[in-house]
């Protein structure tokens, strides 16, 4: 077995493009969080905006959150991957420009065209709204999604080009020579392995997503061009599931890169690590049928495959990444600051969120929990307390004034507020799911309202805490682009 030792790596400041990504993501995130809160408050009967507004905000919340998860994940991946391979800044910026154009189209579609067919644009709803929105509004929404998808596809193609230029092919950048042959300790670093995986899965997902969007756009104007609804649903969920999953795989690069700097311990691509990422590459592409478990007409073997892969896919998260994080921190003498705390907790959020997720992927459980609040319950756990927490950790890392800078009381208070708020918010959603409350209902029955009231209060706490994170990041934007040591050294090594 190869012997791994830690070698110190200088901390680099972020390029302007990375900061532009993060500022865009932070702005949209706050707005979408407020939309989410308004939805919970409407269900809680604290406010009364009506069903149309509720579903409009729901459509924006979904599309916006998935979009900024992609944007902020891409910022992390690009920032670190650039330190190993030669990436094009032009393509990176082009993706952001296309994203902003797409967002403008989606906003116009919803706010002016009153499209509210949900971010999943499930065929044939966009074209069959009973006149509640126009064809043009639906076309603008799906066109906006398509523009965003094309931007991400361009970025991934550039990443594919850069990785191939450096490593020759994806097999090498996934570390297959070390995985299947002799482990000479020269496998590509975790950032390259993760970026390769994300690039492979997202090129597939974006091409599938762009295909179904194009098909639906044609269908919108030529209804004779019929699409099989089951095929459309399969394509939409392959795209949607893989894309949102990829955002975690991009963001976790921050953990792989930054925690070793805090602990002065290596996080290298060992054989188990490489095996886990190769397995995840295949599993994430074939797990999507777990969204169709209640479509009994779908081939049964594919539905069973959805459950089986769901169970298997808990292994890489728990046994490799979460466990790896615990191992690197255990008796490391790590100095806890906002960055290291957030990154550590993000691994918990990811691992914890996977539990109710794979349980929901059990066909007999899905039979009574599919499309209940259980679903937003589990995905908010790993996206908010996992993925976005990685992004917040990265933001604190970039903006840290100097190596041994202390965090203010307000930041630490916001950290605990965020942890408490997110746990309360997500557990409340899960509990509502256990009580069979259906998701995506503008109006709730009286017996469901108490959950909505509690959820609204936790959501307010989350937003207040995130506001502190974001204001701190924006206030330190000037520091974020400079090159200097940020990560505080662990105790004995710091002397």
């Amino acid at each position, binding site marked *: 077995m190869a012997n791994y030792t830690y070698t110190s790596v200088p901390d680099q400041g972020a390029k302007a493009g990375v900061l532009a990504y993060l500022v865009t993501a932070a702005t949209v995130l706050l707005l979408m969080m407020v939309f989410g809160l308004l939805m919970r408050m409407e269900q809680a009967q604290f406010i009364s905006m009506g069903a149309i507004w509720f579903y409009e905000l729901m459509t924006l919340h979904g599309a916006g959150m998935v979009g900024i998860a992609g944007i902020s994940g891409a910022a992390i991946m690009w920032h670190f991957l650039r330190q190993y391979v030669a990436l094009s800044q032009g393509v990176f910026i082009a993706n952001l420009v296309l994203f902003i154009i797409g967002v403008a189209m989606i906003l116009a579609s919803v706010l002016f065209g009153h499209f509210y067919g949900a971010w999943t644009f499930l065929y044939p709803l966009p074209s069959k709204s009973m006149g509640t929105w126009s064809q043009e509004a639906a076309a603008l929404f799906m066109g906006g999604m398509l523009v965003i998808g094309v931007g991400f596809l361009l970025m991934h193609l550039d990443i594919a080009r850069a990785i191939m230029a450096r490593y020759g092919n994806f097999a090498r950048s996934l570390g297959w020579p070390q995985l299947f042959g002799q482990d000479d300790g020269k496998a590509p670093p975790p950032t390259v392995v993760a970026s390769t995986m994300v690039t492979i899965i997202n090129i597939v997902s974006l091409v599938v997503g762009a295909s179904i969007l194009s098909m639906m756009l044609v269908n919108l104007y030529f209804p004779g061009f019929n699409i099989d609804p089951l095929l459309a649903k399969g394509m939409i969920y392959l795209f949607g599931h893989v894309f949102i999953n990829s955002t975690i795989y991009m963001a976790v690069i921050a953990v792989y890169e930054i925690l070793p700097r805090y602990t002065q311990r290596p996080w290298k691509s060992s054989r188990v690590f490489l095996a886990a990422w190769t397995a995840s590459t295949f599993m994430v592409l074939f797990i999507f049928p777990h969204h169709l478990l209640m479509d*009994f007409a779908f081939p049964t073997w594919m539905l069973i495959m959805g459950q089986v892969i769901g169970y298997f896919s808990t292994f890489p998260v728990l046994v490799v990444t979460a466990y790896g994080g615990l191992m690197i921190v255990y*008796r490391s003498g790590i100095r806890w600051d906002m960055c290291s705390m957030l990154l550590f907790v993000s691994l918990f959020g990811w691992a*914890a969120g996977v539990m109710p997720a794979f349980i929901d992927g059990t066909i007999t459980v899905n039979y009574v929990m599919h499309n209940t609040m259980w679903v937003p319950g589990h995905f908010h756990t790993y996206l908010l307390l996992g993925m976005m927490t990685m992004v917040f950790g990265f933001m604190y890392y970039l903006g840290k004034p100097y190596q041994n800078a202390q965090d203010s009381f307000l930041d630490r208070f916001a950290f605990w507020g965020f942890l408490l708020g997110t746990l309360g918010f997500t557990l409340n959603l899960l509990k509502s799911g256990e009580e069979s409350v259906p998701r995506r209902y*503008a109006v709730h029955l009286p017996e469901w309202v108490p959950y909505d009231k509690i959820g609204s209060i936790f959501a307010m706490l989350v937003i207040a805490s995130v506001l502190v994170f974001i204001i701190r990041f924006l206030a330190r934007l000037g520091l974020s682009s400079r090159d200097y040591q940020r990560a505080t050294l*662990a105790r004995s090594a710091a002397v």
Partner: protein
Amino acid sequence: MSQQIAWLVSLVLMTLIAFGFAFVAINSGTREEDYPLLQKRAYRLRTKLFWVMVLILGPAMIYTLLSLPYDTSYAGNNIGPVQVVDVTGYEWRWELSRDRVAKDQPVEFRVTSADVNHGFGIYDTDMHLVAQTQAMPGYTNKIHYTFTKAGTYKILCMEYCGIGHHDMMSEIHVGDLKGSK
């Protein structure tokens, strides 16, 4: 029932993970310089953890796959002729070929949609979801279910379908006698 098990199992697993993280956080202050040795011990523990997961998740996965809701055996061993209910979802209402069925006698719901995707969810008298399937245009999904308790059950839409989604509710009456139209 499944819901409570899912909730409890999730809580237990999430708590176990939380304990793992709390344990490591508490024991992070003093540094063990010999990381390779610590790693060696941790890898041994990881192998054990891996096999514990295999031994728990494997049988759980196989056990839960034994009773899939995709065929008639899921309805239980109740006797009597199958009561067929044809269900069609519309924006934004349900059309059921009959709204009364007998208890303890299997029911076959043949579910489809006339326009967009809907979700056919059956809620018991305590408003707990007991069965569901998707209502998709062009396809018919069959639910086999045997009601064991009399009362008025509610039908709710489980797939977002536009402005009337939350209002798309209907009822099905389960009685002691043989079901009649």
